[in-house]
């Protein structure tokens, strides 16, 4: 299997057997369980006089998780949205796997990339199961509901209890779990998360982090996580990219950032984060 080349992957066999026999007209679901690398090279995006991205570059190896951190307006969300073409850069290159995203049909690209927006973005008029089955259905998969049920199990929202609830009948944390399940359901190789836990209290957040890790254990997937919380980034991500004013200030593990900050800004950021969080302990 091609995915095994990427080294850092969790085993795929556990979940793939379920879906081997599932679909007739479309490729079997397990084919999509291949984590793909991500790359952005010198991406520039201007809105009139405002420079949103100013030559931003990142690399994420397949199966790895990269956290984009930085203050509001640093361009982290904008960079994330380049990967599913919710924004189109003025120049530079954005790659998913080996393919420039511009060469793919925009809907096909998006259906193969999971997405968890800041506020969950669940469709309020649909029940939980239908929300989670959205992408499998868009892909025309016959086992859409089974895929959705499986994804709900992974995030700790058993379908037997929650499938028929409406989003407004769930707590904020539960909604974010469902949003995560929706991103996972079609087994994409890439998931984009835009401050998915930003609006939650600390305890709920910590529970969600577990759900996130379960998901990553269950499916081999490359993740790009936007967060303003360095502790969250340190817990969930393999690598951290610090963004400032539309470009990447430094890119590395938390230890790299701590031991050899490349700029004043990075070292100040780490200092402040250390002072405010006991959980953040560079090894």
């Amino acid at each position, binding site marked *: 299997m091609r995915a095994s080349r990427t080294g850092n992957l969790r085993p795929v066999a556990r979940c793939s057997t379920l879906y081997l026999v599932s679909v007739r007209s479309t490729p079997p679901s397990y084919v999509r369980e291949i984590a793909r690398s991500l790359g952005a090279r010198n991406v520039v995006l201007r809105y009139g006089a405002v420079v949103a991205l100013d030559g931003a570059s990142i690399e994420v190896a397949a199966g790895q998780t990269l956290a984009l951190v930085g203050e509001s307006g640093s361009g982290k969300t904008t960079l994330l949205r380049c990967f599913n073409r*919710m924004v189109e850069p003025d120049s530079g290159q954005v790659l998913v796997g080996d393919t420039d995203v511009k060469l793919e049909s925009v809907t096909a690209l998006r259906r*193969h990339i999971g997405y968890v927006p800041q506020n969950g973005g669940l*469709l309020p*008029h649909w029940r939980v199961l239908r929300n989670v089955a959205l992408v499998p259905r*868009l892909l025309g998969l016959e086992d859409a509901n089974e895929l959705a049920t499986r994804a709900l199990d992974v995030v700790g929202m058993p379908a037997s209890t929650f499938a028929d609830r409406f989003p407004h009948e769930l707590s904020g944390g539960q909604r974010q779990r469902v949003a995560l399940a929706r991103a996972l359901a079609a087994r994409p190789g890439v998931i984009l998360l835009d401050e998915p836990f930003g609006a939650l209290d600390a305890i709920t957040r910590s529970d969600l982090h577990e759900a996130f890790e379960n998901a990553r254990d269950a499916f081999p997937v490359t993740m790009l996580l936007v967060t303003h919380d360095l502790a969250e980034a340190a817990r969930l991500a393999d690598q951290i990219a610090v963004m400032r004013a539309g470009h990447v200030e430094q890119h590395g593990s938390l230890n790299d950032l701590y031991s050899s900050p490349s700029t004043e800004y990075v070292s100040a950021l780490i200092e402040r984060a250390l002072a405010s969080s006991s959980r953040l302990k560079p090894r």
Partner: protein
Amino acid sequence: MRFARIIMASCVALAAPTVAAAQAQGAPIVVASKPFGESYLLAEMFSQLLEAHGFSVLRRPGLGATEVAFGALRQDAIDVYPEYTGTGLLAILHDTLPDSIARDPRAVYDRVAQESARRYSVRWLPPLGFQNTYAIAVRRETADKYDIHTLSDLSRESGHLTAGFTADFIGRPDGLPGLERVYGLHLKAVRPLAPAVKYQALASSAVDVVDGYSTDGLLAKYDLVTLVDDRHFFPPYEAAAVVSNRLVRTMPGAIATLTLLSDRLSETRMRALNRRVEVNGENIQAVAAAALSDLGLVGSSAKTAASPGSTGDSGFWRYLWDRRVSLGSMAMRHILLVIIALGAAVLVAIPLGLVLERVRGAAEPTVRLLGAIQTIPSIAMLAFMIPLFGIGVVPALVALWLYALYPIARNTFTGVRDADSASVEAAEALGATPRQQLLSVRLPLAAPIIMAGVRTAAVITVGAATLAAFIGAGGLGEPIVAGLALADTRMVLSGAIPAAVLALIVDGLLAVVERAVTPAHLRHHQ
């Protein structure tokens, strides 16, 4: 699909009598009138006379105004209605005659008859024998206080007098503009008044001057002074039956029958008849039958007792109860008009609103255009319909449909445009096509707003459908139009109250539908 077919079928069923009437050879003769008392009475006399001679008659009383009635006649949509030569000259032919002949009734009649035949293939039968010219009237106390007896006197004192004129009179060249030109009239203020209320307004001193007709029964009732047209401004207004080309070609016998009334109605007799209808509140059929019998044109055994006359002091609910059968069928007709017009508007305006969400550039101009249609006065709208669709149910449906489009299209477009952006964006980011975003996310989220638009349109349509009576489409507008023309409040209410109740019921039913289509999360917060 099935819904659409049912609508089509009902549309055809509703329209059938009209279309058949206009086309078939042995069809009934369509007798119409304009919406004021004397016109109703004359049309009823035409009808009974024709029926007495074995013709079958379809009554279409109270057609909009001159444009509607004459327009319908030109289209052979009606066969005969009473008109006045002065109106024919100025409002229909838009002619001005040299002063030498403009005051000569014979010359005016000849000119109008000739030109109508030449231009519109419409025939004027010989005049009925009386004139009904404009009568400018003031209260007796006003006449005494300012010593006003002629229009010249009025002009002298006009600076401190307020007039209440019918909209028709204010606009017509032979009305206020002409008076201002010829007499130098400069009134303190001019208020447009409905014919039904002008005499009451004058009697209660709300206005000082009104326009009336010289044969109006109400002039006598309120002890009013009619002013002498000392400069002979008003042309002769001889009443006559105007008949359609179809009737002339296919039913010479009917023409001969109608001509029996020519030169038989004196001004005195007409004023007395009008008074029985307008002041005494007698039933029009009965008055018409009595008049024809007095003239020896119809045997006295005519069906005068067939319809109940108004009994004066019996209560309003009793009045409604007595008319339950006809009110019931008018209400049914009303409901059908509303359902079909509204259904067709929903089928067009909701898809239109959705398309506009995808073609945003075209949205505002399109919706504004529909809004502009909304501002066309209903009578004008109905008049526009006649050249295209004749009179009856079809033009009424088209007009109601046009009025219903705007609120539905506006709310649909606004609703889908402003649907929760986080939901729409999430669907977009997960690979829903624009079409899928529109139909699966925006549309269901906008459902309550769209339904609010449908409810608005429904209430508007129930109200506007009362105006359908002006072009002979029936419905609860019939007693309203007739009651306004006859200054009969009870008759007006017998149409207006059921229409208002109907509006409430329709709105209530649609509120239930609105609740059913409202997405769960919004219902939760209600």
